[in-house]
């Protein structure tokens, strides 16, 4: 398939899923009335207050998280990391917890920025550890990420327990779109700008992924590139945590599938990763809505199950490198 036809197919899939997402839910909304324009005032309210926001939120979170995962993989030259497995999500949750305790009156945007700063610190810590240990490949890098996220996560849990904020913590750490309403998700639009920025810097991220020496040899400022990448990753993590909560595996599964199909040249593949992430999260959210209608299963759970299965399959099917 050519680039153009892959992009067209993926866009169509995302569009179809989006339409399905607009239809499905506890309130009835028939496709016929949507198509013919025979919508009641009640229908319109449902669409604009709940369905559109929810669908946008899902698309934005999915695209943003998948791209964040890809960037993290490029920067660490390792396929098996993503923000939620290296402590960035936990750090951002720690940030939210801290700001909730110390300055509960701050506007949500400021809280998100604090969460992003904490996430950035967590990401920088992870990068510093793997550079220090000179682990550039293999399974040790993701393991160190898991250990780091475990430690930070334990600390966050302890704090939340002591200050009676376990419920808030739960809402940050478990992705769920059911609470998304107009006025409650708009921060996620930031993810769109961040993915656009990632596309602009795609070549530099790809070169950073080839290693510091190659990047520097070609005149790419390695430190600046890594810093920009980490800022994107932590901001995306923070806005998703604040608005919908952690959605695991998207950042891991989507870039890995795209890499197998289309390689790792970021400029070509970031659009695929973006569309793939949006499609996957949307599909998981729809699944969570229909499995036990009219009740919902949070997307964090459906994605956790589906993502784990897909990821294991990928691991087993990965061709060993020749050499």
């Amino acid at each position, binding site marked *: 398939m050519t680039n153009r036809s892959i992009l067209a197919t993926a866009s169509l899939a995302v569009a179809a899923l989006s339409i399905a997402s607009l239809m499905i839910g506890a309130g009835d909304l028939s496709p016929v009335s949507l198509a013919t324009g025979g919508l009641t005032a009640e229908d319109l309210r449902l669409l604009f207050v709940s369905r559109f926001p929810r669908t946008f939120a899902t698309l934005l979170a999915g695209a943003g998280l998948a791209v964040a995962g890809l960037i993290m993989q490029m920067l660490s030259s390792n396929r098996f990391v993503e923000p939620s497995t290296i402590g960035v999500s936990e750090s951002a949750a720690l940030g939210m917890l801290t700001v909730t305790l110390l300055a509960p009156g701050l506007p949500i945007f400021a809280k998100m920025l604090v969460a992003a700063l904490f996430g950035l610190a967590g990401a920088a810590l992870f990068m510093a550890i793997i550079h220090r240990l000179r682990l550039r490949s293999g399974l040790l890098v993701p393991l160190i990420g898991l250990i780091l996220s475990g430690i930070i996560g334990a600390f966050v849990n302890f704090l939340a327990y002591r200050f009676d904020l376990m419920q808030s913590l739960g809402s940050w750490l478990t992705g769920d779109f059911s609470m998304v309403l107009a006025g409650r998700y708009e921060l996620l639009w930031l993810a769109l700008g961040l993915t656009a920025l990632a596309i602009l810097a795609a*070549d530099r991220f790809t070169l950073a992924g080839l290693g510091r*020496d*190659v990047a520097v*040899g*070609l*005149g790419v400022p390695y430190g600046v590139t890594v810093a920009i990448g980490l800022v994107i990753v932590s901001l995306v993590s923070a806005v998703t945590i604040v608005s919908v909560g952690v959605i695991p595996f998207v950042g891991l599964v989507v870039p890995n599938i795209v890499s*197998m199909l289309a*390689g790792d040249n970021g400029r070509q593949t970031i659009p695929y990763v973006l569309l793939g992430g949006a499609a996957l999260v949307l599909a998981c959210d729809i699944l969570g809505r229909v499995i036990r209608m009219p009740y919902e299963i949070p997307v964090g759970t459906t994605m956790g199950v589906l993502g784990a299965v897909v990821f294991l399959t990928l691991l087993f099917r990965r061709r060993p490198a*020749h050499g």
Partner: protein
Amino acid sequence: MIETNALSKRYGDTVVVDGVTLSLPAAEVTAIIGPNGAGKSTFLSMIARLLSIDTGTAHVCGMDVAKAPSDALALKLAVLRQDNQIVARLTVRDLVGFGRFPHSRGRLTGEDRAMVEEAIGFLGLQDFAERYLDELSGGQRQRAFVAMVLAQDTQTILLDEPLNNLDIRHAVAMMRLVRRAADELGKTIVVVLHDINFAAAYADRIVAMKNGRVAVEGRVEDVVTETIIGEIFGIEASIRQVDDQIVCLFRR
């Protein structure tokens, strides 16, 4: 033209490169030889601004590598390090295309594409151009990286053990290519080599390093002698002239 003045690097108490002052003329092939741990790669990395310089200075084409902007330097100097453990799935053509990054900032022009194809052809990689790096043999991958360095089209090229992973046919082809790049294109090439005979056969000038210092430096016939090779590597070697080439034999 590469000039270093009292270039030094230390890690803790260990001095890895110890006050190296050298002047390597343009359009020549210089081979750096020496035992493991002599500081060859560290020296090369400092000239290529991949490692910071502790004391001393290094100039490439008149630019101070510690002070010149990295992107400006990338137009004058290309470098290939020895360990390229790449996990990225890039095609050979994409990788070589990245060699044009200092010129095109990622937007390849027709001229860039022509340079890329030329470099791919130089290394005999036409048949692999659309293959992913992780589908190549070690030698093919090594050649792809050298093609990327060539595509960068710089006056100065630094190669750290480019013969790694290459069989004898490709090793000879690689050194011939290095020779041609100096003779026909006027490139200044510094290459770290382990094999004394490759250095003797293809280099104009040899720098022999030991314990972080330059032990001997000069034309091939001045450096590849029984006493010097014996002292530097701590082995017994016989040096012979075969046809017009100097060869080094290692005694049993």
